[in-house]
């Protein structure tokens, strides 16, 4: 359950940052991405997958807990 810092980059894409692992990666897709419901499975550019409990659209940047779905390696 890593803490993940999420922010939007200048192109409006979601950037994923895990401080403990120095992992900085752009998210390729977010399962739910509407104002009422945000979260679900997030796929990163390097292929790894994380899961967020769906919540109403948060105000980025924000730190959230994520579950690692698979290693992607």
């Amino acid at each position: 359950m890593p803490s993940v810092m999420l922010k939007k980059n200048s192109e409006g894409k979601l950037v994923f940052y895990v401080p403990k692992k120095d992992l900085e990666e752009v998210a390729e897709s977010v399962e739910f991405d509407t104002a009422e419901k945000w979260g679900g499975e997030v796929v990163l550019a390097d292929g790894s997958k994380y899961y967020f409990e769906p919540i109403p659209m948060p105000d980025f940047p924000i730190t959230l807990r994520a579950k690692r779905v698979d290693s992607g390696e």
Partner: protein
Amino acid sequence: MAALTREETEALIQEVLEIYPEQAKKDRAKHLAVNDQSLEKSNKCITSNRKSLPGVMTIRGCAYAGSKGVVWGPIKDMIHISHGPVGCGQYSRAGRRNYYVGTTGVNTFGTMNFTSDFTEKDIVFGGDKKLAKIITEIEGLFPLHKGISIQSECPIGLIGDDIEAVAKKGNKEINKPVVPVRCEGFRGVSQSLGHHIANDAIRDWVLENRDGDDSFPTTPYDVAVIGDYNIGGDAWASRTLLEEMGLRVVAQWSGDGTIAEIEKTPKVKLNLIHCYRSMNYIARHMEEKYKIPWIEYNFFGPTKIAESLRRIASHFDDTIKAGAERVIARYEAEYQAVIDKYKPRLQGKRVMLYIGGLRPRHVIGAYEDLGMEVVGTGYEFGHNDDYDRTIQEMGNSTLLYDDVTGYEFEEFVKRVQPDLIGSGIKEKYIFQKMGVPFRQMHSWDYSGPYHGYDGFAIFARDMDMTINNPCWKQVKAPWKTDASSEAVKAAA
């Protein structure tokens, strides 16, 4: 000597690794790599931020060095107590040349060493009482100080002193910030964790001090310079450029900085990060809590300066954008003259770097502006994200070495035969005795500043006077002819 091909570089790494026992070889192999620009992520080629092997000569420092020496030390109007035995503070005192303005011992304390001078008695009975007494004494002797930070040395963590409690009491007593920093040297694998701990201490004990206080008048052009430690005056050379383009620099973190500036930083519009490795933590925190965006910039060499000024300006309105262009145009004749003078003398010279956490990639542009080529680089304490940013800056098939050992570095130099090495004081004399020109790139070899356009002129002059110094022709003993000694030839 011609540049090495990819195969030759790989063979060189294998050759150097040969000397290690099986286990060590396996471990070290992960830290040495040949650069491949097609890779987007460094974790495919290099491992970093891991514990150094026992038995090798590492060049790293400790968490105390990262906190006291790098992040907290330059804050000039605070007194930083090196809490523990006397040596840690005394042997690192003023060595980093973080310049500042002020009267030392009256309202600024940058080059002074304050220590609780632990002895056996303090280890046995605990040092909390002593620490409380020091805080009272400091208040009496140096009434113009603006705060105290307690920088823990190893024994504090080992004996479990409660410096937080002392700090809270001290804070009530003197009514100034007293910040306990748990940066015991044994924490982490290098000074990098010290930076992080120091950032966290600022976050927890200082940054919020002026939340809800709007008495500080702000402008839409407020920025903070973060991660510039004013080595030889670097931050000043950077600050003039930013101010000239119309920005207002509210805070300098932490070279020539004050605690008041740090407390005001949450009011700025944009954080400018120079040393990403040591201060990205606090920038990310401010982004989340105060919604202040941050960007990295690079003030080494005219190409990167122009790029950075434009990138900074893109976050503001047209007056600043015009200001950036004005600044670049104003200095153009100046830096072109520097390039015209030194480029013919330095063209084609090859450089190997091994520095801390930022400069291994940031200075590459400055060398390229002078027509030089960086053929090997590495970080003492960089993390994955640093190498991600390095791969694109470095040429293909160049050497990357993480936490290089004394042996490996020497062997690489013997084989690659660079015209210049940029590294720290511990490496300097080894390579000079081998007859290789050397610049100390941590504190600019007692020169500087190197940032900004003003700094570039000094940088170019320094590189020229080192590489083209006639002394290098005298290193070889006259009775040793070229054929007689392979060893000397390799070292020359």
